[in-house]
């Protein structure tokens, strides 16, 4: 992987994130009702509103406010939450850790299951296995998270047969087994859609590679089938799968909003919904920006992994 390629990708990300800060700031500026009104309530007198706006710096030009905000963000200062009277960075930091652990758990489990599933489907193409895996992946992509979550709750958390908790959170440092028990259903909900995407992608790439000339050449050379699959076919079909996984992180970040809300998981998604309902602007800005940064970084990592798996893309 050339340094120039890495630098070019990094440069592109910086530009994208700059645009994202404008978009995030812009959306919160156009939201009806400003921070002063949020703090003082609907019945505040115009005089007290004006005073509060001066105190918060809302009477300054938009550009100055934006630059101030960006400077603060770059120093890790997102301002104070309007509702929780805590620094936003602290509120968001805790939530971020909880979301991250859930997302990583879902992603790792899913990748570990989906890639073998896709490979099996490609190797047994046309058999009942292939059909079952294909069917599963179609059903998986068509279920919104809230439907999957609700059905899982009915099956695993009914009062008559409570296998798993219906929601809530235990810090892993206190009780790791309890943490896992609470994480299973949300992670499974997030995982279903991802599993469907990834296994379908691996299947289609793998079947393409398996019918390619170099795999035939490897077989004709008399290399054992297992080696053909593991050393020749699989590495060449993984690059597109990584591309799909990185796109799926976008779904994952969206899905986490709904899933955390349903399972009362104290992460970024639940925080965002709370902040949106209560118009807590600094929190909305921070969470949105953070999610966009995570998404951009995961795309960067994916691009680098793809370039490493398939050096040709660097010159495309």
């Amino acid at each position, binding site marked *: 992987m050339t340094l120039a390629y890495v630098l070019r990708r990094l440069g592109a990300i910086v530009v994208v994130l700059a645009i994202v800060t404008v978009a995030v700031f812009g959306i919160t500026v156009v939201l009806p009702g400003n921070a002063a009104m949020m703090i003082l309530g609907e019945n505040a007198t115009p005089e007290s509103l004006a005073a509060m706006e001066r105190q918060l710096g809302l009477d300054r030009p938009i550009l100055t406010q934006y630059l101030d905000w960006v400077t603060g963000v770059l120093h890790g200062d997102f301002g104070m939450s309007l509702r929780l009277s805590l620094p936003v960075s602290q509120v968001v930091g805790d939530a971020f850790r909880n979301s991250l652990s859930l997302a990583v758990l879902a992603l790792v489990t899913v990748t570990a299951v989906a890639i073998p599933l896709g490979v099996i489907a490609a190797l047994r193409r046309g058999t009942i296995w292939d059909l079952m895996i294909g069917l599963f992946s179609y059903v998986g992509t*068509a279920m919104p998270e*809230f439907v999957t979550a609700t059905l899982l709750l009915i099956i695993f958390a009914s009062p008559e047969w409570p296998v798993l908790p219906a929601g809530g959170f235990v810090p892993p440092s206190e009780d790791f087994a309890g943490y896992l028990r609470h994480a299973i259903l949300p992670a499974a909900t997030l995982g279903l859609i991802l599993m469907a995407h990834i296994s379908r992608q691996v299947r289609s790439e793998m079947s393409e590679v398996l019918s390619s000339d170099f795999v035939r050449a490897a077989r004709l050379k008399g290399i054992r089938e297992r080696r053909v699959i593991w050393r020749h076919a699989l590495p060449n079909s993984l690059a597109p799968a990584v591309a799909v996984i990185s796109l799926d992180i976008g779904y994952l970040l969206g899905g986490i909003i709904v899933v955390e809300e349903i399972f009362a998981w104290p992460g970024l998604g639940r925080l965002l919904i709370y902040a949106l309902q209560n118009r807590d602007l600094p929190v909305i800005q921070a969470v949105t920006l953070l999610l966009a940064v995570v998404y951009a970084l995961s795309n960067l990592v994916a691009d680098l992994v793809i370039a490493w798996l398939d050096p040709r893309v660097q010159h495309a």
Partner: protein
Amino acid sequence: MREILRNPAGLVGSFLLVIVLSAAVLGPFVAPYDPQQFHAASRLQGPSAAFWLGTDQYGRDLLSRLLNGAPATVLFGLGATALGVGAGSIIGVIAGVAGGRVDSIIMRVLDGLLAMPELLFTLLIVTFLGGGTSQAMLAVAVTFTPGMARISRSAVLSVRTRDYVQAAIARGESRSWIVGREVLPNALGPIIVEATIRVSFAIMIGATLGFLGLGAQPPSTEWGLMVAEARQFMFRNPWCVAVPGVAIAITAMGFNLFGDALRDAFDPRRRRI
């Protein structure tokens, strides 16, 4: 069309779409009961001869509610996608045809907008616009616009260098004639395919917004809202959440499968053996 029906995915997809679309068109007329009518004596029941799919917490007939909600749910998906595809295609075609400075500025802005996860973007817009069906539809359309713009731009770019376009330029045809008669019709395929698949996303996002209380409002029988309203009672009668939930999944799957088959029909190279 024959291509699509020969493909098993296309066959199943078309079948599901026929069911869903006929429910959307005829549903409210064939529903056995009024969707808001309370049957106090038979609340939270499973399927029976009187109530084919069971009843909810007020004893309302689930089948009737489902059929009455079908137009709202399907129209939401079609409407949001049409708006988003329309706006996105216009932007994408402008970028692709103009090229140069205009193109790179448009593309940078689109990259920035695409850097936000879809549902997050939609939620922000809905908060800005306020909850409700038409607001939610507009929000989904806005969310779809950057992605569709990018796809239509690349479709235009891939067509622009073809020989027949070069020939038209050499003939001295006007720019608008070339765009309207040579570029657009040939760039339409990928746009239609993407739009079909996006309808299923639009339906899923619309239902999710309904579920979160940011989309359709009671007493609407939008399916996501049906799930949300019945959630408290899901352990006493799983049918009242399962019925609308599965209906959403079937609708989304129908558009998905049909879109995939359409893609294979447009692009024979991708057709699987």
